[in-house]
C-alpha cells in the first residue's frame, strides 16, 4: 500500500502549472540556460568525446570507490584535515553541531551545498541556537523567505527581480526599493561581507574530492565559497561519499563539462582547491578544517550495478534545464531536495520508492535528460527500473521501500487483465462488451479516472480488429 506520507507530485505539479508568473520565470531562465549550454559545445564530436571521457572517469572512480575513499581520507589526515563519517543525515548534523560546540561557535556562514540541504542542516542548527546563514546570493534570497532551492545550481530561479526587489526592501534593514540588479546585488554584498567578517565558522560543500592529494575542489562564481572557507577560523566541508576521484588530472575534464553543462560557462570565476588548513607561517585561512563524508543511502545505491550510475552525477543541473516537465512546473513542485530528472531517480532511492512512487511516474520518458547528461546517466532506464521496484519485491534487489508502492486496486486490475488475455473466449466476450458499451463507461470511474484526470477519455472502436478481420475475410488488396 502507499505510505501515509506520500507527497503527490501530480497535485503540486498541477498547481504549479496554474501560476503564470512561475511559469514565465522558469521559461525565460531555462531557455537562456539551454541556449548558453549549446553555444559552449559547437562541435558535436568534441562534446561526445568529453562526455565519454567524463563518464569513464566517474565510472572508474566508482569502481574503486572504497579504496579511493581510504586513500583520500589518509591524505586529508596527512594534510591536517579532520575527517568524519556519517551514515545518516542525523549523524552528519550531530557531527557539525559537535564541531561547532567544541569551538564555541555560534554563527555559521555557508557556501552553497546541496548535501547540507539534504541534511536540513539550517533548521537543525537553528534549533540548537546557532545561526546558519546562506551566503550564495540565490540561497540568501530564498533563505530570507524561508524557502528551499528550486534548482540545484540557481536556487532562486523561481523568483523574478520585482519579487526580489520587494523582498529586499521589506527584509533588509534600511534597504530602499529598487529593481536594479546591480543595486540589489550591492545590498546583499554589504550585509554578507559583515557576516563573513563576524562568522565563527564557515561551511561548504565539495564539488570534487581528489584522492591522490587529499584536496577539496570548489567551483563557484561569486566568491562566497572562498569567503566561507578562508575567512572564518573554522571550516567544515560536507560531501556525499561518491564525490571522490583518483587524480587531480581527472578533475580537469569533469570541471570543463560541469560549468559548460550547468550555466553555459567555459569556466567559473573561481576554482578553489583546498588541501590543508592554515599552514606554518601562513597568515590567513582557517585554523581547522573538518570534512564530513555522508552516506545517506548512497552505499545502498552503489550495491546495485544498474542503479550505481546514479552516483556518477556531478550535479550540473542540465537535466533540469532540458526537462519538459521541470521547465513547466519548476523545482518546488517535486517537494524534494533534488528536483528534476536527477531528483526523480535520486529521491526515491534515498527516501524509498514506495513513499515517492508518484515522482517516478512524473515523466514522459522523453529522454532529453539522458541526452544532455555530461556523465551519460540513463535516467529514463532507471526510472523504468524504479517503477518496477516500487511494485515488486524482486530477489536480489536492495532498493529502499521496494514493493511498497503496490495497491490492491492496481493489483486486481492487472490480475483481471492477465486473466482475460489468457482466455481467448473470455477475451472475445470482454472485447465485445468493450466495443459496444465502452463509451458508456463514466470518465470518473475508479482506475479510469487516473487516466482521464488529465487526458480525454479514450473511445473504443466500434468493432475490434479481430472482429473486422473475421467479417472482412482478411483481404489483402
Amino acid at each position, binding site marked *: 500500500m502507499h505510505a501515509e506520507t506520500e507527497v503527490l507530485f501530480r497535485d503540486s505539479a498541477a498547481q504549479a502549472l496554474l501560476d503564470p508568473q512561475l511559469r514565465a520565470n522558469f521559461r525565460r531562465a531555462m531557455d537562456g540556460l539551454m541556449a548558453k549550454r549549446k553555444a559552449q559545445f559547437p562541435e558535436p564530436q568534441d562534446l561526445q568525446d568529453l562526455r565519454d571521457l567524463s563518464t*569513464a572517469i566517474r565510472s572508474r572512480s566508482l569502481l574503486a570507490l572504497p579504496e579511493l575513499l581510504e586513500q583520500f581520507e589518509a591524505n586529508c589526515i596527512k594534510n591536517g584535515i579532520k575527517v568524519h563519517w556519517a551514515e545518516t543525515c542525523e549523524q552528519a548534523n550531530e557531527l557539525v553541531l559537535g564541531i561547532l560546540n567544541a569551538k564555541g561557535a555560534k554563527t555559521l556562514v555557508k557556501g552553497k551545498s546541496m548535501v547540507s540541504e539534504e541534511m536540513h542542516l539550517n533548521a537543525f542548527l537553528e534549533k540548537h541556537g546557532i545561526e546558519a546563514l546562506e551566503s550564495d546570493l540565490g540561497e540568501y534570497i530564498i533563505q530570507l523567505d524561508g524557502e528551499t532551492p528550486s534548482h540545484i545550481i540557481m536556487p532562486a530561479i523561481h523568483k523574478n527581480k520585482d519579487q526580489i526587489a520587494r523582498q529586499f526592501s521589506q527584509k533588509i534593514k534600511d534597504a530602499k526599493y529598487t529593481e536594479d540588479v546591480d543595486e540589489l546585488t550591492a545590498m546583499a554584498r554589504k550585509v554578507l561581507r559583515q557576516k*563573513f567578517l563576524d562568522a565563527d565558522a564557515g561551511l561548504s560543500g565539495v564539488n570534487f574530492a581528489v584522492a591522490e592529494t587529499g584536496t577539496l575542489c570548489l567551483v563557484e562564481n561569486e566568491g562566497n565559497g572562498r569567503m566561507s572557507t578562508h575567512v572564518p577560523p573554522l571550516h567544515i566541508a560536507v560531501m556525499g561519499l561518491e564525490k571522490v576521484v583518483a587524480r587531480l588530472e581527472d578533475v*580537469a575534464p569533469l570541471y570543463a563539462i560541469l560549468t559548460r553543462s550547468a550555466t553555459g560557462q567555459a569556466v567559473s570565476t573561481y576554482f578553489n582547491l583546498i588541501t590543508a588548513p592554515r599552514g606554518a607561517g601562513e597568515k590567513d585561512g582557517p585554523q581547522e578544517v573538518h570534512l564530513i563524508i555522508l552516506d545517506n543511502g548512497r552505499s545502498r545505491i552503489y550495491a546495485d550495478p544498474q542503479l550505481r550510475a546514479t552516483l556518477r552525477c556531478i550535479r550540473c543541473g542540465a537535466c533540469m534545464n532540458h526537462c519538459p516537465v521541470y521547465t513547466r512546473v519548476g523545482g518546488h513542485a517535486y517537494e524534494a531536495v533534488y528536483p528534476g530528472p536527477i531528483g526523480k531517480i535520486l529521491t526515491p532511492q534515498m527516501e524509498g520508492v514506495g513513499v515517492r512512487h508518484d515522482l517516478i511516474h512524473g515523466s514522459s520518458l522523453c529522454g532529453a535528460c539522458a541526452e544532455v547528461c555530461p556523465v551519460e546517466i540513463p535516467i529514463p532506464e532507471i526510472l523504468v527500473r524504479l517503477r518496477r521496484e516500487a511494485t515488486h519485491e524482486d530477489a536480489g534487489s536492495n532498493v529502499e521501500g521496494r514493493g511498497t508502492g503496490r495497491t490492491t486496486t492496481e493489483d486486481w486490475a492487472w490480475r483481471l487483465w492477465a486473466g482475460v488475455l489468457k482466455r481467448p473466449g473470455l477475451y472475445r466476450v470482454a472485447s465485445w462488451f468493450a466495443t459496444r458499451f465502452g463509451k458508456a463507461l463514466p470518465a470518473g470511474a475508479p482506475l479510469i479516472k487516473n487516466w482521464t484526470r488529465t487526458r480525454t477519455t479514450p473511445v473504443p472502436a466500434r468493432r475490434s480488429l479481430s472482429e473486422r478481420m473475421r467479417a472482412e475475410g482478411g483481404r489483402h488488396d
Partner: protein
Amino acid sequence: MTNRPATDARTAILGRLRAAGETGPLPSLDTAVLERCHWGAAERMDRLRKGMEAVHTEFLTASPDDWTQVVRDFCDREGLKNLLYGPGSEAGADLAASWAPGGTQLMPYDRPVEAFKDELFTGVDAGFTSTVGGVAETGGLLLMPDAAEPRLMSLVPPVHIALLRASTIQDSFWSAVKALGWGRSLPPNALMISGPSKTADIEQTLAYGVHGPKRLIVVLVDDLN
C-alpha cells in the same frame, strides 16, 4: 561529540561499499579531446586575454622592466588610497623597491589576519598578487597563495591586481595541472581565477562584484622574446 559513532560509521560504510564487490575492468580514458588544445605562446596570450576580457577582466600590458611602473600608474590613475602586497614574495619585493613615496600607499600583509581583519574588510582599496601561470583555453589565472602572499589578498579587497608573465601561460587547465605538478603535491590553497566575482542569481542577469573583488586587473608582462 565522541569519536565512536563516527568510527563505526566509517567501518559500516566502507564495509557496505566493499560488499558490493564488482571490481570489473576499469574503463579506459581517452584524453584526445583534451590534447586538442594546443597553441603557440603568442596565441596562448591572446586566447587568455580574450577569454578573461569576456568576463570583465581588465588588462594592462607591460614589459619585464616596467611592470612596477605600470602598476604604480594604474594605482595613481584610479586614486587608490592603498595597495595590499606581500613583502615576502619576489614580485612584492620588486614592487616595494620601486615604489616612490606619495600617492597610493603600499600596505604590507605581514601579520596574521586576526590582527587587522576589520581593516582588511573596510580599509583596503586593492590587493596585489603574483600568479604561477595562466590558462589559454578558457582564460584564467593560477594562484598559489602562501605565507608570502596570503589567501585573502586576491579575495577581500574590491580590486585585485595580478601579475602574469606571458611565458607561464599553459594551454589548458589540464596541461597546467601537469606542468605545475599539482597532482603530486598541492599547497594548502591553490586556485584558478577567471574574472571579477560575479553572479546571475537574480533573473539570470549578470552582476559583478557580489562577494569578492569588483574588478580584476591583470598586468600582463610580455616576456616571450
